[in-house]
């Protein structure tokens, strides 16, 4: 029961990440794309944590933690870069 719900939540977050690719491709400004990519990264962290439960591998949680750190670093670095260099990226 719970195992099936975990798989269902994983598939749901995977579909949400795929749907967010539309905004990352279309988004009129550069910041729209960055926000969409940031949301895709957050969904990926959740997918990694759910896969850690489903497969019983605790090591995937470390991967998810590092992925969350890099995701945050990407957003901060791109926003800083856009302000200081006039938004060309």
């Amino acid at each position, binding site marked *: *029961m719970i195992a099936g719900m975990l798989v269902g*939540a994983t598939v749901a977050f995977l579909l*949400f990440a795929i749907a967010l690719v539309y905004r990352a491709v279309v988004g009129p400004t550069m*910041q729209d794309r960055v926000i969409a990519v940031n949301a895709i990264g957050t969904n990926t962290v959740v997918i990694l*944590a759910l896969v850690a439960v489903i497969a019983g591998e605790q090591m995937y949680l470390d991967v998810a933690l590092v992925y969350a750190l890099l995701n945050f670093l990407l957003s901060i670095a791109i926003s*800083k870069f856009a302000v200081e260099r006039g938004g060309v990226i």
Partner: protein
Amino acid sequence: MTPLEVVTAVLLVGGAFFGFVAVVGVLRLPDLYSRAHATSKSDTLGVLLTLIAVSIVFDAQLATVKALLLAVFLFVTNPTAAHAIARSAYDQGIAPIIGGRR
């Protein structure tokens, strides 16, 4: 079902629901700032609920602490990142939609 399984199921369904709300907001809202609002609030709540469900399913191992740490970290950094991006957009002169007009 034990009560803990009921709590886990409710948390998983709530997390998937708020993730869906965030996706609909990012795809459908008209403005960069409203999209940032959708992703920074709804997505954070969905992620938080799902990670708490994950930490309940790992019962009382080291992985429980790791999942809760991940939840706290995302709870702090996800709105901060959205705020930084929205502020960089405002500094570049991208105007928000106020009252239906740009």
